[in-house]
């Protein structure tokens, strides 16, 4: 049975807000639209066919970029995940595309035989295989949806810069709050333990605060400072970047609140290791790190990081006990 052409109400301001919240892991996790064939404007048999994921933000981004044009939008079922991620997992993949082209009866809706995919969809889709199985030729459009109109107007030819993935400051700073919030969960556990320990031994809330702020700073160093200053922090390794910024922070802590050698040693061993670990985690959000590269970093730095953190924690606890 051929599925009917779908329509969707225009995106609202509320949609945009929910989008931002969902990016930060707040609110409802998956934010999807129904997979299938949509008509934007009033597409005829010669209108281009764009393919996207059934992640609401991807869907709305295409609609926004292509406002005022007539075209078909083929939405694949990626369980509400964006194109790049879904392509990596294979849900934005060859099989799903082939099945969807058939189930919506695309061959009868359009006269041409061209599917335009986001370039990053190529991670999951083998264009030549789709052509073999459906008769539709796959053309990879630009990486960023904002360049789509220009791509179409140039006769589906991409300028070299349309083909490149970037990682601008704005994007890095968009991701930083999420990294920070995720790290705060671990910090909360630490705070809970530290509270039991400090208050249990008759310490005050200000004792607790003075134990907590150096660590909180190292969390900020790894999740906000390193992402923000990514190109300018020395070293290519994310772990080393984090370690360096964390070391600067630990140096500041020791200078601002001198409290003896053991304390200083503890801070200098623990704080940079925490920042290094968190910065290493930012590889997941970056757009240019490779799996073998991250493996190499883990192989080189995971053990020293853990040892340094452990030694630092022991020194700090000793400092606390002896006081």
């Amino acid at each position, binding site marked *: 049975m051929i599925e009917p052409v779908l329509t969707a109400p225009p995106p609202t301001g509320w949609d945009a807000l929910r989008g931002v919240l969902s990016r930060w892991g707040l609110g409802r996790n998956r934010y999807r639209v129904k997979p299938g064939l949509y008509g934007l404007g009033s597409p005829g048999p010669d209108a281009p066919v764009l393919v996207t994921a059934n992640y609401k933000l991807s869907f709305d981004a295409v609609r926004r970029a292509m406002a005022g044009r007539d075209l078909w939008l083929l939405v694949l079922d990626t369980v509400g995940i964006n194109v790049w991620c879904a392509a990596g997992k294979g849900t934005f993949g060859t099989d799903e595309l082939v099945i969807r082209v058939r189930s919506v009866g695309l061959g009868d809706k359009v006269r041409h035989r061209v599917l335009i995919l986001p370039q990053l969809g190529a991670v999951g889709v083998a264009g030549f295989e789709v052509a073999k199985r459906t008769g539709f030729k796959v053309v990879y459009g630009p990486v960023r949806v904002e360049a789509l109109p220009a791509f179409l107007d140039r006769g589906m030819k991409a300028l070299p810069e349309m083909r490149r993935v970037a990682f601008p400051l704005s994007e890095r700073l968009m991701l930083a709050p999420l990294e920070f919030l995720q790290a705060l969960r671990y910090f909360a556990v630490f705070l809970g333990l530290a509270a039991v320990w400090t208050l249990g031994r008759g310490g005050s809330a200000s004792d607790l605060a003075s134990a907590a702020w150096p660590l909180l700073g190292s969390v900020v160093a790894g999740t906000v400072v390193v992402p923000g200053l990514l190109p300018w922090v020395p070293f290519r390794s994310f772990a080393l970047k984090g370690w360096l910024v964390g070391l600067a922070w630990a140096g500041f802590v020791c200078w601002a609140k001198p409290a003896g050698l053991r304390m200083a040693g503890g801070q200098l061993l623990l704080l940079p290791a925490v920042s290094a670990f968190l910065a290493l985690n930012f590889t997941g959000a970056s757009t240019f*790190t490779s799996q073998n590269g991250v493996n190499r970093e883990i192989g080189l730095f995971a053990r020293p990081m853990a040892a340094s953190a452990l030694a630092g924690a022991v020194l700090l606890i000793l400092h606390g006990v002896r006081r």
Partner: protein
Amino acid sequence: MSLGPGLRYLPAVASLKLDIEACTGCGTCVEVCPHAVFDISDRKASIKDLDACMECGACSRNCPARALAVSAGVGCAQAIFNSMLTGGPPDCGCGSDQGSSCCS
């Protein structure tokens, strides 16, 4: 460099291999690569910037001549840590669509 100065990852780790004999010079790899790793001249592809490769696998998946090989995966520390714990393949948490990770 498209990413801008400073946004380069570790050198000499990428697993990308090109079988120059098999290559037909179709240019698909140039089209799909998000980091401009390839060049085409005299109807053959060449790897001009190996260290820019993020091992996404788009080129090898789309090479009709099967001339490209790369161990595709996610460059995501959390995913790799998780796989060490679970013994499964590295898979980032982005399935929960948090926009973070390999994929935002």
